[in-house]
Every structure is written in C-alpha cells, then in structure tokens.
C-alpha cells in the first residue's frame, strides 16, 4: 500500500511494409489495385510538384515554401483513409494530403506566390481548411470541428497534422486534452520528421517517443513507420473507426524524415550532417511502396515511364495556367474583412483605390 503502481501505459510501434516492399500479411490493409495505384500516383505527384516548386522558387517565380519530399507516406496514407464527410486540417507541409482531398494542384503555386486564391477549394474538396502556419494552433480547430460533428450526430471525423516541433506547443496538448474529455472524433497525426528547422527531435522534449504525449490526455497513442504508407493508412483507418464509433480521439506519431531544407529560406548544412540525410534517403517512402506494387505485379518500368510522362504534363500545364493568371484584384481584400458592410472600411477602400490609381499613374 505505501508505494504502489496505480497505472501502466505502453507505446507500440507499427510497421507493415519492410524496406524491400514486403507487407506483413496480417496487418496488410485491404486496398484494391486501383486504390494502390492511386496512392502511388499521389505520392509521385506530390514529389514532382515539390521538385518543380523548388525550381520555381529558385528562379524567383514563387516565394518561400516548405518542401514535403520524404513525407509523402506520412501525409498521404492518413488522408487516403478519410471518408468524404471527414475534415482535413493541415499545417504547411502537407501538399500530399491536400492532393488526396482533391485540392487543385495550382493552389500550391498561388498560395506560395502570395495570393489568398490559393486557399479557395472547389466543391470536390469541401472539408479542406486553408494551410495553417502558426505551429500547432490548428490542432485545436480539428478538435472543435470534431465536436461539431459529434454534436450533430454526423458520422464524420477531423484529421489534423502537426510536426515534432509542434508537439511542444501548449495548443497541441490542449487540443488532445479537450478531445479526450469530449471523446471528440479526431485523429491527431504528428509527423515526426526529426527536425523543427534546426532543432533535432531530441532537443524538443525529453520524452522518448512523441506518441507518449497522448498519455497526458488520457487518449490512445501509437507510433508508426511514417515512411510506410500502408502503416500510416491502416493506423488512421483504425483510429477513424474508433472515432466514428464514438470512442474518441487517437494520436499517431508517424516517424519520417524531412529530406530537404525546412523551407527554401533555410540551409540545413548549418545544423545537420549529410550522412544523416543520406541514410534517410535510403528510407525514401516512394521506392519502398513502388517495390510493394511491383511485387504485387501491378506496376513495372513501363507503367512508371508512362506515369512520369503524365505527371510531367500535369505539372507543366499547372505551372502554365498559374503563370497566366492575372485576375488578382487587390481591392477584394476590403470585401473580406467582415461579412457585413461598414462605413470606415468602405471609406478606406475608396482611399486605397485612389492611391493605387495615383501610384500606377506615376509608374507609367
């Protein structure tokens, strides 16, 4: 009685695909051939768009962005598990997930060229929120959305992504704690890519896993191989099933690696060594998954070549469309300060237009 163990916890790690593309037969999710190829295509598309954006950025044709290369499995697997009514609440490195949810490719260019138009999604992508830059803050929105789903009795959940750095933010803790109390249908995915700009994971917290952060909120936590798209998919599916069943939130730590710079404004050579990067490239999620579909006999070099061609075409066409866009009215920002009209804002709009006229008159 004087000193007794009152609670016990553990953190598990899940992996389905091994490095050679062999899947654990017991855990392998039931995905059709079409689904597997769709996932592969999305991963490939995200990678190629990332590479193109890096070029565009270097040429000054778009602004700073945070490449997602290396995190295709940790981003796309979970998003692919979502149902149509579920919500996606992302940070800034989730091109993959956003493409899964049918956000147009061009949005990534518009957004990173400094236009709010890049946040507007079409009807096919109804429950995709704009990119959230304030690290960790969006996790709370997911909890609130999930509460609303539950309140209305909808069979829907919210999925939110955040990074290893974000796991240090009070907001993320509060989001998990509120979700726990409310049994809100949320899936929290921490993409632990080992770095928060220059901060290695080990300096972010003394916790050995990030999955154990779930214990503080009294909710289930799990670690998965984040470069294994079958694992990220399956773990999310399981978490969603719990969510739909009214069993509340789950946190998943997806172990992955940020293969590129933090953003194009960053130079990783200042703080990490190339050996580490090289080793991480060995675990690139795309070849691993490719081996799997090749083993399954549904993929080969010819199909690969065709896909590369096709995606190049898609990316090219998107860039072209992007560069032809000229419809950015500056004054529309006055339309979206409020949902109601106010004299002060309208007077300022008039002054703004007047100033713009005088400015361009002078420029001519």
């Amino acid at each position, binding site marked *: 009685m004087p000193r007794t163990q009152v609670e016990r916890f553990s953190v598990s790690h899940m992996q389905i695909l091994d490095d050679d593309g062999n899947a654990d037969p017991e855990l392998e999710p039931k995905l059709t051939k079409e689904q597997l190829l769709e996932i592969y295509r999305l991963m490939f598309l995200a990678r190629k768009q990332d590479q193109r954006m890096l070029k565009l950025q270097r040429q000054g044709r778009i602004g700073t962005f945070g490449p997602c290369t290396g995190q295709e499995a940790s981003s796309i697997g979970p998003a692919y598990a979502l149902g149509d009514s579920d919500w996606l609440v992302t940070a800034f490195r989730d091109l993959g997930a956003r493409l899964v949810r049918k956000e147009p490719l061009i949005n990534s260019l518009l957004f990173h060229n400094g236009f709010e138009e890049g946040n507007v999604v079409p009807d096919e992508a109804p429950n995709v*929120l704009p990119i959230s830059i304030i690290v960790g*803050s969006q996790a*709370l929105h997911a*909890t609130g959305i999930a509460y609303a789903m539950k*309140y209305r009795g909808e069979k829907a959940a919210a999925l939110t992504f955040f990074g290893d750095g974000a796991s240090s933010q009070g907001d993320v803790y509060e989001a998990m*704690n509120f979700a726990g109390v409310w049994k809100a249908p949320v899936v929290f995915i921490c993409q632990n890519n080992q770095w928060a700009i220059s901060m290695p994971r080990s300096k972010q917290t003394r916790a050995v896993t990030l999955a154990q952060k779930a214990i503080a909120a009294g909710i289930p936590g799990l670690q998965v191989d984040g470069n294994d798209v079958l694992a990220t998919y399956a773990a999310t599916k399981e978490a969603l099933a719990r969510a739909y069943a009214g069993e509340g939130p789950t946190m998943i730590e997806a172990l992955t690696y940020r293969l590129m710079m933090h953003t194009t404004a960053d130079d990783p050579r200042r703080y990490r060594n190339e050996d580490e990067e090289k080793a991480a490239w060995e675990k690139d999620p795309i070849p691993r998954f490719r081996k799997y579909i090749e083993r399954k006999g549904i993929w080969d070099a010819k199909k690969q070549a065709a896909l590369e061609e096709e995606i190049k075409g898609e990316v090219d066409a998107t860039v072209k469309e992007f560069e032809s866009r000229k419809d950015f009215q500056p004054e529309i920002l006055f339309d*979206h300060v409020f*949902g109601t009209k106010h004299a002060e804002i309208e007077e300022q709009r008039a002054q703004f237009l007047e100033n713009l006229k005088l400015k361009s008159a002078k420029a001519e």
Partner: protein
Amino acid sequence: MAKLNIVQAINLGLDQEMAKDDSVVVLGEDVGVDGGVFRVTDGLHAKYGEERVIDTPLAESGIIGTSIGMALAGLRPVAEMQFSGFSYHIFHQLEGHASRLRQRSLGQRTVPLVVRMPFGGGVRALEHHSESREATYAHLPGVKVVIPSSPRNARALIVAAIRDPDPVIFMEPKHVYRAFREEVPETEEVMEIGRSEIVQEGSDLTLVAWGAMMRPALRAAVEVQNARKVSIEVIDLLTIAPMDSHTIVESVQKTGRCVIVQEAPKTLGIASEIIARINDHVLLYLEAPVNRVTNYDVVTPYFGRELDFTPDAGRIQREIETTLDF
C-alpha cells in the same frame, strides 16, 4: 416586459437565441452546472444540456481554438472568458485565425464566434479582474468589439453578436452587471453592430463614453447642466470596432468641444483613436482640445487603490468644465 439587470438581460438573449437556433452552443469555464461565476449562463445547462452548454477544461486557448473549429463547421459558439484578464491566452487564436479565416479563404470560411468576457473594475476582486483592454482587441482587423452599457442594449447586442457572421468580442462591464434594472422586452430586439447611439442631445459639448463609464459620464453631464446653461450631447459608443466615426464626428462638428471618458489606461486607448478621427474630419470645428479622461499609464492597481485611479463623475465634471472654459 420585465425589469432586468445586465446579467439577466444577457442571459435572456442567450436563452432566446439558443431556443431558436440549435447551432448556438455555449462553452467556457464553469458556464454549465455553475451557471458562470457571474451567473450569466444560469439555467442554460439545465435547459439545453451539457452538449450545448459545455463546461470546458481550464484552458483559454483551448476554448477559443476549439470554438473556431466549431464555427468553421457550422456551429455558432458563444465562448466565455471568465474574466477579460484571462483572455490574453487567446490572442494568437484571434489574431492568427478567427480574424483572418474569412480573408484567408476569400470568404469561403467564416468564424461566427462570440467571445463574451466581463471586463473593467469596480468589484473588489483579485489581480487581473479589473482591466479594460478593449483597445487591444479593437486594433485587430477582422474582429468586432462591442460593449453594452445597459440591460436593454446588452440583450439587443448579444443577439446581434450571435447572429453576426464574424468573430465578435462581447465585453461585459461587470461593474454595472447588477447596478440597475431596465425594462427589456420579451420580443426580439437586435441592435446593429457598428453604430453608436446619441443618448442625450446637446449643442455645447460632445461627451463620449461606453460600458460602465456611461453612468459617471451621464452623472457628470447632469451636474454640469445643472450648474451652467449648457447642453451636452452624450454618445454611447456601443460598438468599439469597427467604429462609428460618423456619429461622433457629426456631433463634434456641431458642438466644437469633446470629452471622452475611458476606463482604460491613457496611451493607445479608444479615446486616442476617437481624437484621431475628429482630427481627420473636423479639426477646424474644434474650439478646444479634445479632452480625454482616462485611467493612468500604470499597471492596473490592486483594488485597494483602484478607485483613486478610475475616472469618476467628479473628475469628468471638472474636465467638461475645463473644456467648456477653454
């Protein structure tokens, strides 16, 4: 038609809106079973249940961050900050998200959120229970800030705030929560957000105040009017942001003199902005400097010294006279 105090009037507005629209939910610390530490949400938990009147964990950023999510998903959350002094935890969620999501998405996403918070001094409470920081919120584009001053306008404004498509900070002058009663009609009354009100017409001086300062301001106006042959136009600001410059500017154009009463510290308070707008529009009509009667730029005193710092009717009266005599 019942005679209600401000607490009861806000409670009535909340109750009626909840009855009408089940997307309205109330959340915060102790708002449920306890009915709120000031009893503003009294009875709602019993009536609407714990799913709609949510006792949250003790975390303000959590309350507002999740409220933003609820609003994005179509609910109309009315969140309570137990005291405005504990609302600063939410600043990044307001600045970074609530105020911006409409523009960020060019109108596709909206955050119809009400954040209620009692503010201001006068209740002899502990530290952090007496500031008046409406200016902090009013400087944020995309956020509306309203401050009622009486039971009737409190009810009409809370209804407007709940129906408003934007985030509204609804600041409740707790000093007058129960200070007086007023007839508040059972039937719907909605007050337009973005409008000030001329509560007394006059031609010699414009007196602007809001919230709990309305009462000493009106008292001072009466005193001065009793003592001299002048008439004072008194404006209740009601909406702090976006501000209704028009009403003030027109009044000052007529009177040429203006005194503004502000419970908050002097520097960068609402009064500064009012002066700036008078300067912008009607400088040449001024017959005296605009006079601001404010708190001082000291850290909010504990309640033992608080009253020495807060503008009172006597000080307001003196400043009105100084301005008239200028």
